């Protein structure tokens, strides 16, 4: 029981202190805030150690599994190569570390990113079906926006005005509506955690 109560008490006290701190400009309050940020950074850097241990454990165990051995070997080799190159040859602008990053990591990330073009087409192919009234409105809107933002769309009268109206009025209004709900949800969740009503994180 105590095992649950102590973390709940810590959360309650720090939650209230940090909420009040926001409204207090006094240097003492600023000092509390700065100290908490330093703690935050210290905790996060310790978490990295645990994360790296987890990464290494995960991949070394999979080396025994034929199905995954190859992939995990690549992950481990890549990890140790970067660590070694970084520690031995440095990480400054003209180092091998930066070269590997720029010529391998960046293109690999760009390649994964570019998959979006393909995934978007297959998702659109499957999703925009005239199943009912709402789906039809969604499809027609998508149709107008997709067509309106092509070069040829400029040749259809009023197309640009319609696209602009859709983006500036219904699109923005719905976005803001969602954001207001999100804002309130964030505050409510914070209050629930501070008051200890939401306690899933200590096992419920």
């Amino acid at each position: 029981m105590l095992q649950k109560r102590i973390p709940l008490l810590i959360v309650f006290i720090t939650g209230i202190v940090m909420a009040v701190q926001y409204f207090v400009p006094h240097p003492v309050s600023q000092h509390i805030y700065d100290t908490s940020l330093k703690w935050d950074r210290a905790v996060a850097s310790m978490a990295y150690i645990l994360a790296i241990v987890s990464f290494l454990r995960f991949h070394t165990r999979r080396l025994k599994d034929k199905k995954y051995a190859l992939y995990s070997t690549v992950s481990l080799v890549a990890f140790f190569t970067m660590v070694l190159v970084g520690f031995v040859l440095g990480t400054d602008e003209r180092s091998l570390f930066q070269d590997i990053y720029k010529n391998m990591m960046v293109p690999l990330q760009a390649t994964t990113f570019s998959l979006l073009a393909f995934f978007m087409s297959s998702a659109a192919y499957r999703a925009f079906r005239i199943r009912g009234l709402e789906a039809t409105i969604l499809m027609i809107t998508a149709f107008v926006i997709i067509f309106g933002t092509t070069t040829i769309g400029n040749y259809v009268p009023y197309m640009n005005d319609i696209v602009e109206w859709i983006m500036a009025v219904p699109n923005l209004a719905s976005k803001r509506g969602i954001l207001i709900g999100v804002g309130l949800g964030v505050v409510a969740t914070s209050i629930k955690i501070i008051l200890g009503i939401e306690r899933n994180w200590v096992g419920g």
Partner: protein
Amino acid sequence: MSFNAVLMVLFLSPPRVFSPDGTGKKLTVQISLPKEVQVQITSLQLVRECKTGEIDTLDILPFLKAYTDNDLNYKVEYRYKILAFSNGNLIHESEWSDFAKPKAEWFDTSKLPLFIVMILFTVIIIFYIFQARANKRLFLRPIAGLEAVNEAVGRATEMGRPIIFISGLSTISDIATIAALNILSHIAKRAGQFETRIIVPCYDPVVYTIAREMVKEAYTTIGRPDLFNGDDIYFATDSQFGYAAHVAARMVREKSATNFFMGYYFAESLILSETGASTGAIQVAGTDSVAQLPFFVVTCDYTLIGEELYAASAYLSRDPLLTGTIKGQDLAKLLLTVVIFGLSILSLFGVNLTLGLF
């Protein structure tokens, strides 16, 4: 030279010094130089003297009308004087101002409207929590995406395949991530009851450590700590597209029966959810990332939109105290809608009130 000398005699008034806020760190020095002097100035210096005797000189931009001196000590008194130069020649030197202390206050009055709204909102929520305690039955509208959570876990059990849970690509300071982890706890308990495997690849180291503990706790709560497998809740990578590639690969290789995407997402959302859709998995997403919502809506079977993500924990647990907070949230939203509507109507008639809120 003689002209400069005349100026020096004429304009020796000290600068005005005051505290711009209550942080106890700042003093603003007002620089009011006559126009005749202003046009000649090429550089300006501010001399600061502490009551303890330390003197510092600060170079400031020549066109400034006020300069805010930062990082001061609220227990020390300071005074200032201005030196104005024209091409390196001193043309104006003011008298010392009076000694002033940076003001350190215990309440920022500019945040008063926000404070009132916060208190009001908290009171509303606490009121509904008490109502829930008094056993007043509170109605919650059915949310399809949350109704589907149990079904989705059940499906994975029937098929004998694992569940993949992603808690988003944001950090733990993002409330969406915390909401996602709360949902993870529910799902882990449910999956534990059915002895279904749950895989949680993590993007952020802090989130990883918390997710791991939460799943462990969830299994302990249902009395099955033996089911916890540390290798299934792991840190994958903190590279955005590297993570997307890893999770996509796991979905394909493990042939997961159910995928959950909860929390905050960026451009990788479609890569994750479309890959999941291609493997035929049942998918439930929940995010407050407005830009990524459309992608989840078209690729997932169920999507929790915005605040539904935050309501999920209360909905799944049916704990009256938690559902009380949702009622409070709804009332606050209603109040806010009335205020926005009222102010919009007023602005149509040319009355622009902001109540200090916006």
